[in-house]
């Protein structure tokens, strides 16, 4: 089978997946931003894997899907993971709690935010990871940016977790607050509410692997979803088995399902 891999890089998990598929006698063409051309020439593979959530990979995903070729994960679901407002509705629809947010111009925030709303976290409207993420303790911590909109989220004091899931396997890790997936993390016991969160999430969206960033509020013990991800690097997987072969096999299985649906 010819597999097209839409990916920012050909190292890390993408590189390992290429090796996995090639070992299993598949031909893999990686498409990075250096050579991704989105037109008919892109349509010469049997199956596509949308590894990256960046805009042009999403465009490629929508294009591939519109041309009736199988692609996984679904481009629209991936877009919804990337956009904070859309992600908020994804979490809500799965009946899971997420922190309150505020979105508007500096002027609108200054006029409406009260002292009781702080501390908040500033995050990019599109994207995941920790770039540009920081705590805002007062309105003065924000700089007015002409024509720019600012997304702020209630900062929840508590313990932060990165919870990976692949099929029925769950791997929970405690991580430093506001850090990305690559920070040093410690494996922790999976609590019953974590299990319930993952189950609700995967059942609602038919997602076979990914991760949820969770925070357990110190004062109430309540768990919140602060960031969902469709295709993490899994470089902090500290649980049983090899995540690469698990994901690789799931992706091959997904191809069969998608092909049967056509």
């Amino acid at each position, binding site marked *: 089978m010819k597999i097209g891999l839409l990916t920012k890089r050909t190292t890390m998990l993408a590189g390992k997946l290429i090796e996995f598929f090639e070992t299993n006698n598949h031909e893999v063409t990686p498409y990075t*931003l*250096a*050579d*991704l*051309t*989105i*037109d008919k020439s892109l349509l010469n593979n049997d199956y596509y894997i949308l590894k990256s959530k*960046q*805009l*042009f990979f999403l*465009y490629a995903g*929508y*294009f591939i899907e*519109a041309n009736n070729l199988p692609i996984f994960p679904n481009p629209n679901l991936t877009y919804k993971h990337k956009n904070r*407002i*859309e992600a*908020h*509705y994804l979490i809500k629809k799965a009946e899971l709690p*997420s922190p*309150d*947010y*505020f*979105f*508007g*111009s500096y*002027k*609108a*925030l200054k*006029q*409406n935010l009260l002292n009781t709303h702080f501390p908040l976290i500033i995050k990019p*409207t599109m994207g995941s990871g920790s770039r540009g993420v920081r705590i805002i303790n007062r309105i003065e911590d924000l700089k007015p940016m002409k024509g720019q*909109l600012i997304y702020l989220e209630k900062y929840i004091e508590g313990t932060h977790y990165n919870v990976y899931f692949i099929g029925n396997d769950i791997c929970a890790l405690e991580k430093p607050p506001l850090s990305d997936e690559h920070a040093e993390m410690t494996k922790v016991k999976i609590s019953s509410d974590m299990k319930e969160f993952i189950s609700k999430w995967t059942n609602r969206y038919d997602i076979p692997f990914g991760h949820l960033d969770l925070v357990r509020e110190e004062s109430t013990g309540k768990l919140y979803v602060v960031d969902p991800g469709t295709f993490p690097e899994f470089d902090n997987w500290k649980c049983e088995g090899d995540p690469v072969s698990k994901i690789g096999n799931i992706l091959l299985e997904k191809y069969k399902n998608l092909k049967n649906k056509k």
Partner: protein
Amino acid sequence: MVKIGIIISNKHKKHRLKALIKYLKQKAEVSIYREDNYLLQSSPRHYFNEDLFFIKGKGNLILSLVKCIEKETSIPTINSFKGIWLAMNRFLNSVYLRKAGILVPDYTLIPEQMKAPFKNFIIKNIIDQKSSTFKPKIQFISGNLHVSDERAVLEAQGSQRFYHYYFYQRFIKSKWEYKVYGIGDQLFYFKQVPTIKNPHRVKPKMEIDKIPELEELVLKAKDALSLKIASIDFLKSKDGLYYLTDINSGPNINTIENGPKIVGDFLLEQIKK
């Protein structure tokens, strides 16, 4: 009395809708939501009691607000999130319009350093979200026409490295540029000398009679992109085929004679449905 919410970018845009707002105020309670001073928040959620929202704008906060109204209420939005989003994403609307069987010029999205894919082409901005206008740089190279919109160049040469892409559209030579305004099923036809022919002295549009081929294409395109109100541009090739080259979810309704009344009546009619 029915209630209509109007969502706009800023006070300048409000001025452009002055006639529509004046007309609607005779028949409805009108509330204005401005992107530059509205704060979208998850809790406590703003309570919307409007019967319909009319959206004139496509900024990120406007899109998020429309999304929120659609998710949290059953109030109709004209246009919908999907319609506005697809209309401003040139690449995506080309994909879906072609899938719906509408003729669009050949197109591609490629990294800026790669060779132009067509002999005659126009480079357009990928996301048509800002209110700035088309500023073409026109060159004839070895007898071929190369046009690039300044907005597209600025977009690709911005600070975000991953954004270094160009959206190419094959250039269709046409004597006239046709613009059709669609307010629901009512269509208004205009033509003008293509902007490319004389970008510095844009000739005014002339209202023309209905063109049956365009009627079919416009209704199909509006349906494909879930748009109730739109303006759509076409070029006619030498073999007589109409190519859809541009689609706008927030057209200037003042161009049409009695435009504000026509749009106002259409919005009121939608509430009754």
